[in-house]
């Protein structure tokens, strides 16, 4: 199964009334419409990790990614009646998550958060990078990244919004061009060109590693 690659040993094993055979996303949605909460739980189980990961790479902020991931499922739940099977459910949920992430990026720009690194300086007036104390326990050691991964993550987060989403969906979420175009509501040619442009920008930012 595609989700096997997500090594999340602490994931809850939900008991549900759904038969042991694996139901399609559409079948689960239809069951949810009929009031089957277990079916919706299965939907959450399938997509919570990919959505969280996608949002984390987009925002480079884990807490915000979790919050928006939950918001994504809340919106799916309350709009379940309006969902149509014209598109794959993964396309539908990734579109919601992408829109929420883009909205959050715009909010950040409007808030114009101060850079904390500039507030702390040594006696020799050299800047010291301020690290926020990580009071919350992060999931596991998987979240501890080496310097290269952090650099890559910062490079991705520095991309413009319109290049960030397609490159993450393509290179990290392993989506096809066609699905990416549907998620982002773009033409296939535009999608490919934006992914190509994003690659070039990342190569420029990460040229030290090439």
């Amino acid at each position, binding site marked *: 199964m595609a989700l096997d690659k*997500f090594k*999340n040993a602490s994931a809850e094993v939900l008991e549900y009334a759904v038969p042991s055979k694996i139901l399609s996303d559409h079948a689960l949605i239809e069951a949810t419409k009929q009031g089957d909460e277990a079916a919706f739980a299965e939907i959450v189980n399938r997509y919570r990790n990919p959505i969280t990961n996608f949002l984390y790479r987009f925002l480079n902020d884990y807490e915000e990614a979790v919050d928006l*991931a939950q918001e994504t499922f809340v919106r799916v739940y309350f709009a379940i009646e309006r969902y149509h099977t014209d598109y*794959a459910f993964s396309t539908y949920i990734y579109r919601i998550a992408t829109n929420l992430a883009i909205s959050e990026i715009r909010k950040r720009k409007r808030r114009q958060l101060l850079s904390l690194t500039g507030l702390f300086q040594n006696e020799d007036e050299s800047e010291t990078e301020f690290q926020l104390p990580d009071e919350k326990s992060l999931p596991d050691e*998987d979240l501890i990244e080496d310097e290269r991964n952090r650099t890559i993550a910062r490079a991705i987060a520095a991309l413009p919004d319109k290049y960030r989403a397609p490159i993450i969906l393509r*290179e*990290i979420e392993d989506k096809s061009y066609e*699905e990416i175009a549907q998620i982002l509501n773009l033409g296939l040619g535009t999608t490919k060109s934006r992914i190509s442009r994003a690659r070039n920008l990342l190569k420029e930012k*990460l040229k030290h590693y090439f």
Partner: protein
Amino acid sequence: MINKEFKNKAEEIETLNADDEKLRQMLGGLKKVGAPKNFDFHLKARIAGAEPNSLRKPFLVPWLRYVLPLSLIVMLAGFAFFNLSFSTGNQAVQEVAAGLPPNQNETANAPVETPAKMVVEEPLIASVPANKNLEIRTLEPEFVRSENKAMQNKARAIDIENSLAASSNKRENDPKNNSGGSRDITLKDAPVLFERNANPNSGNVKPLNVKQAEIPIQQVLSQIGIEADYTDKGWKIVSIKENSLAMRAGMKAGDLIEAIDDKKLSSDTVFQQAFTGKVFRILRDGKQIVIDLNAK
């Protein structure tokens, strides 16, 4: 179940250069993060506490933040603009309604100058109704005064034309009649009449009391084309204008007009109100003849 999307990506044939391929490996090698343990718990709590409508941010909220102040500013600006334009427009309208040109005060007391082309003659008739208000008009614009003069000229010919209508029709239809001319008939009452060369705006001139307008005999004769001198027995015709009413009626120079409508003429004979004289008693070569102006 094989995810359809993944299957499609696997089927895609994408040729990447070395750098792109390396980038792909770098990005693909990033550790994937997952949802926290309490994700489902918080999600259930969130769903239970959220109202369906609360999920939808009021569509207008972000718009109101910008559109409302802008619309207010636009409305205020438009209100101020229209008020300003209306106030200046009303001022202009008032000036026009007053009918006063900008330099009205300068010309109000100026002496009346008769236009060169206007023919000013003594008022001959009075056809103003009895209830006509004849107050002096002191602040009359130039064009109104000129127009009144024109109306006066027209009005004075009404009764004469009416009284001679029957005879004139015959004459006009006569192809040999070269008198021509036009007949000006006004449908309105005659305006206020003033004496000749009088300045109605001076304040010292009163309009003629047309109710009791006296028309001297000399003017009557002059109107019908006769220049005459008074003698002991009457008014002797000195000359007659070509194609005048008197000539067409058959009068001649040398005729002695003794009476009009059996009214013996004297040197200061005047006629009251409209002149409606028709029958002229004339002495010619010792013989009395009667000429009826309407007859010919």
